[in-house]
């Protein structure tokens, strides 16, 4: 059991980060407020997790203006998608391991 966990991705250790990735996997791009509502988080909390994912290049940030209001949207990067799939596979293996 312990050995399986070695392959676990550190970036997805927190449920918030995994949650952000889950949302970005099925949506081309999502803005900050939508993420905040979906994950029920405070601004600061969400921002710090987003920064962490941005640092490992799992998500990309697009800043633009709608009228005069800044609007920031986030998308999953290629690396991020790959890492997320790998992580899911790992979870699957873990569940199978338990079942047997």
């Amino acid at each position, binding site marked *: 059991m312990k050995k399986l966990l070695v392959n676990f991705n550190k970036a997805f*250790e*927190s*449920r*918030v980060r*995994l*949650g952000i990735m*889950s*949302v970005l*996997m*099925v*949506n081309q791009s*999502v*803005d900050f407020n*939508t993420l905040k*509502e*979906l*994950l029920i988080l405070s601004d600061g909390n969400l921002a710090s997790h987003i920064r962490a994912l941005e640092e490992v290049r799992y998500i990309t940030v697009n800043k633009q203006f709608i009228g005069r209001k800044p609007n920031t949207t986030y998308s999953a990067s290629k690396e991020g998608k790959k890492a997320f799939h790998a992580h*899911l596979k790992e*979870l*699957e293996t*873990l*569940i199978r391991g*338990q079942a047997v």
Partner: protein
Amino acid sequence: MEKYTSPEETLTEIRHLMERSSRFISLSGFSGIFAGIYALVGALAAYYYLNAHGNADGKDAYPPGVPEYDQLLFLAGDALIVLILAIGTGIFLTTRRAKKDGNSLLDAAAKKLIINLAIPLLTGGVFCIALVYHGNTFYVAPAMLIFYGLALVHASKYTRDDVRSLGMAEIAMGLISLFMPGYGLLFWAIGFGALHIAYGAYMYNKYEK
């Protein structure tokens, strides 16, 4: 930092988040039932009106050739009332349900659903107006059913998958009615009335009970 206790729990939450972020699932089953009832009442009104106004067998809301102005006005008004009542009830019931479930009503997923429904529906609406304008009233009922069905199939990506089946059924009704002249109103009543009631009841049973 919160961590997961089990991989099963993790997967459940991932699935839940993916669904909630990309699909609008608060649509109330009751709104389908009400829409169906309005459509049936509207179709009955059209049936009796056409019967009383010399449309011999009364089977067809859209007899060949250009209908009289009065008839057209009555049918258009009838359809408009059905549409407004159906949408109004739908919005009311869905708002109530979204509140109860603690979901916001007009989130990103809802907007996507509305836009993707609206594109084929508005196209169909203009298409039907053009049909009436050119006097091809026979095609209006099939065209309404077909465009509505296509809109549902298209929009099903943004809501429950079951909507896809309803869309397919509507398309089938529309295509069959194309080959059954004289039964336009009947197929319209089945497609917008009976199918909506059956679908609404099914959805209520499956997700809201």
